């Protein structure tokens, strides 16, 4: 089977999704109006609320949402065959993914730039905000565990990678110093940084640093601690800036390699409904999150982006456009991996041990077709995955620090201390990674991420219902996401906890199963309470509509 078929499918989804469906929703349901004042214009303060050009915001949005997940999720999901993965990516983004990103942003724009905390308080119930915070905390913990596991595994299995990563960290600190302290021209800074990183990747083959999984994990958590404590300008931002060239350089090289090599897909289109990981429904739909739909996007769209939208008609190209771009990255990842192996047994042997390794093999093979040596290509692809994952981990620890202070700060004073909050987050992540099994943690992470999307869609449904507007196009995806993700979380929690109860696991695996299982249960309880409160709020809004409330534009 040629990969051209997949790209034709990709093009059809983009045309139907972006140029037809999203345009229809934008003009007939939300009726975006270029004359209506946006929060960015009304409350302009030069920072949080600041109107920005749509092209600038599009770049900003894409950079904020695209991480390692659109690559790793599809790689794991290829175990069910490439066809289910591609179909879910396509139809997921078409009917749910862009809808969530667009409507979350639009809802916030039409609500004076309010965040999900304020909106859930107002639209659902006062306790909804607290439950949402609890949910988000565990969601973040799972993100840290899932990506922390990927990073530690890759660093410990490929000794060529630790040195380039140390170089990238050092270069990031230098970039921060050059830009913010020495005020060096950005172009010069960029050239120096990119050259140093590329040389560092090349030297990785000569300066190999072997280390155990635990040693690499501890190094990562120390790294996470400093990224949480240091000012953003000192480390996180320069890291993201310097490394983004590596990431997109790799994607471009991979695409060019694919186009030149024109390799056939070697993996089977479909393997079986039930595989070692579990059944296709619901697990495929949580294994592939980003690329199809991701709750994280709704958080980004409803805070940063919504407060900078200059004109309502820009919301569709900025949020919807970025979502379709991320879908493109996920499709490229699928094709790279589906064409890299001679047969599926090779793929499965690598995927089960180290999913990131599948991508490094695939990208190295694609890069080899344009003359980049396989050894350099492999190290480059490894760095690329590490960078994407580390970008997420950096942000998560920072975010967990704030979440701890907000959840516990009023009752336990020490929770407000940034060092204590970060260390608590790092220790929790350490325990979960050390004791948990990667695929279980990844499924739980995907489940919580998708459930976050379900919650975002629930909020939008209630928002539209409160305005007596048509909400079916959001409510149906919301129901699908809610049922699927709760089913996935229940399935995984029961699987994990039953092993603990039956005594089939012992030692650290038992602890890992217990913690991961309980986190799954907490997430399900939070989701069910929010669903119940959401249902009551929905009944209230629809009753008001029946009584004859005036239909107002959403």
């Amino acid at each position, binding site marked *: 089977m040629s990969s051209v078929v997949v790209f034709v499918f990709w093009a059809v989804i983009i045309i139907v999704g972006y140029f037809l469906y999203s345009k229809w929703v934008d003009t007939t349901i939300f009726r975006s109006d270029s004359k209506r004042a946006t929060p960015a214009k009304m*409350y*302009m*303060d*030069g*920072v*949080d*609320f*600041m109107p*920005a*050009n749509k*092209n*600038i*915001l*599009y*770049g*900003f949005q*894409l*950079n*904020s949402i695209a991480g390692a997940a659109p690559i790793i999720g599809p790689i794991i999901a290829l175990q069910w065959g490439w066809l289910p993965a591609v179909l879910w990516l396509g139809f997921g983004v078409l009917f749910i993914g862009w809808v969530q990103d667009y409507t979350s942003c639009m809802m916030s724009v039409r609500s004076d730039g309010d*965040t*999900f*905390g*304020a909106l859930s308080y107002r639209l659902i119930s006062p306790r909804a*905000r607290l439950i949402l*915070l609890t949910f*988000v905390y565990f969601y973040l913990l799972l993100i840290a565990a899932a990506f922390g596991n990927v990073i530690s595994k890759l660093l410990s299995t490929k000794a060529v990678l630790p040195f380039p990563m140390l170089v990238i960290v050092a270069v990031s600190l230098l970039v921060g110093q050059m*830009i*913010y302290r020495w005020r060096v021209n*950005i172009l010069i800074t960029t050239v120096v940084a990119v050259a140093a990183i590329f040389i560092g990747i090349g030297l990785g083959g000569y300066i190999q640093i072997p280390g155990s999984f635990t040693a690499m994990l501890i190094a990562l958590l120390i790294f996470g601690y400093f990224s949480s404590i240091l000012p*953003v*300008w000192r480390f996180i*931002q320069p890291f*993201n*800036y310097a490394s*983004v060239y590596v990431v997109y350089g790799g994607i471009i090289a991979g695409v060019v390699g694919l186009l030149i090599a024109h390799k056939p897909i070697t993996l089977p289109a479909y393997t079986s409904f039930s595989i070692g990981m579990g059944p296709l429904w619901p697990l495929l739909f949580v294994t592939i999150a980003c690329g199809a739909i991701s709750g994280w996007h709704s*958080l*980004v769209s*409803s*805070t*940063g*982006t919504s407060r900078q939208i200059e004109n309502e008609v820009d919301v569709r190209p900025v949020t919807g456009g970025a979502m379709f771009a991320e879908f493109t990255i996920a499709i490229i990842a699928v094709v790279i991996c589906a064409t890299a192996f001679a047969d599926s047994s090779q793929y499965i042997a690598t995927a089960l041990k180290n999913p990131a390794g599948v991508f490094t093999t695939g990208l190295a093979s694609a890069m080899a077709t344009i003359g980049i040596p396989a050894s350099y290509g492999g190290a480059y692809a490894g760095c690329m995955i590490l960078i994407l994952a580390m970008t997420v981990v950096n942000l998560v620890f*920072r*975010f967990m620090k*704030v*979440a701890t202070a*907000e959840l516990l700060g009023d009752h336990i004073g020490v929770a407000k201390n940034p060092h204590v909050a970060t260390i608590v987050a790092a220790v929790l992540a350490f325990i979960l990674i050390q004791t948990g099994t990667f695929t279980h943690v990844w499924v739980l992470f995907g489940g919580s991420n998708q459930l976050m999307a379900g919650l975002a869609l629930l909020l939008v449904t209630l928002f539209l219902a409160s305005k007596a507007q048509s909400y079916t196009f959001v409510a149906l995806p919301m129901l699908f996401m809610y049922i699927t993700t709760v089913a996935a979380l229940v399935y995984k929690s029961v699987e994990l906890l039953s092993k603990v109860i039956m005594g089939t696991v012992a030692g650290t695996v038992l602890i890992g199963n217990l913690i991961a299982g309980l986190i799954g249960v907490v997430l399900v309880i939070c989701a069910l309470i929010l669903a119940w409160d959401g249902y009551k709020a929905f009944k209230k809004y629809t009753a008001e509509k029946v009584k004859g409330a005036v239909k107002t534009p959403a």
Partner: protein
Amino acid sequence: MKNPCNAESVRNSIRKGWRSLKDFLYGFFLYGMVQEVEGRRRQRESAFFLLVMGDLVGLPIFPCYYRFRLLPYCIAKLGPWKRNTLRPKDLFSNVSD
């Protein structure tokens, strides 16, 4: 003969496309950093306003002499500062930071 209108419109389209690409690249690579710098400036400015004009947002600060001397220079920023200071903030406000 070549239509000058068409040539002009093509040039305009290229110019527009180039500008859009530049904006996209700026947004993708630099916008976050620029926002960070602006945020740091705003934090310091906000701390200064709180010290000098905190009574405007309900802090029990005795209005000092310098407040009136500074007022003409700060007046344009007072509205956004008050709105920003009094706006409820929660975990979700920090996502994009």
